[in-house]
């Protein structure tokens, strides 16, 4: 039990501080520090997996992470950065690319996913292979068709750059060389900051100014919750499960989740992606086979095929699998999906290359 006098003091302290702050006028040369993006948990979001306390955001560390994200020297050839295939104006997906180009124009094997709200993800990639946001970048850095570089080489390059030496020392202290811990922690400061939570839908959900919906959008939201919401669940619009949504009869080229679990039950299952900013993240699916949202809805309505691991929720008794959508429902759904576009996120200068 704490001493009563002490607890009174603790209560008084914030009040005194507030009085101080209100009482003083800031000096002309003191400019309010802009908050590091993604530091606060949005009111309509659940608790994150990777809360700010796990890697407390600071201005210098965030900006260092941003530099690393846009640093082409992370690739073997010095040509490909994270930002090459994850572009801010399309929610950090790769615009117009079914598959992305790595070093020497090598083609990737899966569609580059949008990078948003990563703090809330339990695992990463279409197959969930990366299990922690800090270690996630190791796969694209070392993948021969992506950046084709080794962690040791990346550190070597950073360690001969006086700018990085200075900035890492400023963030982590000490006089030793930049190490893998510092590099990956700094990069996570940026990737964890990519919070998209200010779409028109969010304002509607939080009942804020700017949150007005048309009748079609309201109907579309209802259709989404009713017909898509068991997978694209909650405010993040994904339940983070792995599912086979009837794209193919067999999955010889890419077994999806089974690549990680080695289980036949997981063949053809891929991570349910968020629907946030979905109007911008074309092309769609793990292999980018659909160019438009209309094609995606066609697939769900009448394009699915059977396979052993097809998600049971997609089975329709007596007919081919899918989710029946009337013309009106399609139209309303499309109207709703556009309310998930977050212009503030797409244009936030703090997240841009500089």
């Amino acid at each position, binding site marked *: 039990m704490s001493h009563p006098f002490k607890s009174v003091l603790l209560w008084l302290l914030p009040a005194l501080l507030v009085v101080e702050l209100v009482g003083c006028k800031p000096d002309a040369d003191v400019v309010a520090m802009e908050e590091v993006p993604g530091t606060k948990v949005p009111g309509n979001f659940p608790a994150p997996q990777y809360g700010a306390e796990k890697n407390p955001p600071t201005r210098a560390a965030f900006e260092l992470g941003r530099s690393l994200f846009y640093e082409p020297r992370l690739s073997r050839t010095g040509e490909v950065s994270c930002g090459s295939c994850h572009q801010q104006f399309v929610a950090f997906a790769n615009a117009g690319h079914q598959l992305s180009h790595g070093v020497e124009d090598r083609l990737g094997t899966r569609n580059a996913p949008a990078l948003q709200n990563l703090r809330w993800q339990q695992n990463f990639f279409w197959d969930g292979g990366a299990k*922690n946001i800090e*270690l996630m970048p190791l796969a694209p850095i070392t993948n021969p068709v992506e950046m084709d570089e080794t962690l040791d080489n990346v550190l070597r390059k950073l360690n001969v750059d006086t700018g990085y030496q200075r900035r890492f020392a400023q963030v982590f202290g000490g006089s030793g060389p930049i190490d*893998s811990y510092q590099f990956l*922690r700094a990069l996570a400061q940026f990737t964890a900051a990519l919070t998209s939570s200010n779409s028109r839908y969010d304002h509607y959900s939080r009942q804020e100014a700017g949150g007005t919906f048309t009748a079609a959008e309201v109907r579309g939201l209802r259709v989404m919750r009713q017909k898509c919401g068991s997978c694209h669940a909650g405010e993040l619009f994904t339940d983070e499960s792995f599912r086979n949504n009837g794209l193919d009869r067999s999955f010889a080229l890419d077994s999806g989740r089974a690549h990680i679990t080695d289980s036949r039950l997981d063949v053809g299952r891929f991570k349910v992606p968020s629907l946030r900013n979905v109007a911008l993240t074309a092309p769609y699916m793990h292999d980018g086979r659909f160019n438009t949202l209309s094609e995606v809805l066609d697939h769900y309505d009448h394009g699915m095929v059977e396979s052993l691991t097809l998600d049971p929720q997609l089975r329709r008794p007596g007919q081919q699998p899918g989710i029946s959508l009337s013309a009106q429902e399609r139209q309303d759904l499309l109207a709703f999906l556009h309310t998930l576009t977050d212009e503030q996120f797409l244009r936030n200068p703090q997240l841009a290359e500089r």
Partner: protein
Amino acid sequence: MEFDNVAGISDLQLNSATPYATASGDQLTVTTLRYYISNIKLKKADGTEWVQPESYYLVDEALPSSQKVSLPNIPIGDYTSITFTIGVDAARNVSGVQTGALAPSDMFWNWNTGYIYTKLEGRSAQSTSGAVIFHIGGFLEPNNTIRTVSPAMNNNIIQVREGRTPEVHLQADILKMFTGPNTIRFASLSNVMGGANAVLVADNQAAGMFTVDHVHGN
């Protein structure tokens, strides 16, 4: 603790001129041997236990200094049993970037993140490709390969005293990876990277790869 890597009755040599023979008679030349030892515990006869905090070591046959592990600040007493994990506990597999022995290296899988607990690479005339690649790791069921062992002490007692540093000499017999509960023949299995086949090897490792050879009182 000293980890003495052996192949049967021979001291292990990397790239040995003469191949070693497994219990099944397969030939094996080793080019790389590394393994994680973690969560070391010592127990007294009365059952009280000392658990080493932050107990993670990477033993590398190519790096003699890595084969000697010193455990500081053990309370004075007579310890009759030793327990450790071959590999890395599940928690540290998912806890984000680590430092020291657990810093990301080629003992870490990037595409399916997690540690490689034991890496044995080499050559065998029986392998169809000529290569032998055993990367044992994984922490999710059913392919969890974390194994915790308490090698028999054969009545040895580790007497920890003020100003005394007893030494426990362990032998790690790599040939035991291929025999025991599961017989591994390189003709049918020579390339393992996690998964169900890694479990077969991990079960063999748990069954008797590590033995206490002797204890020095010092």
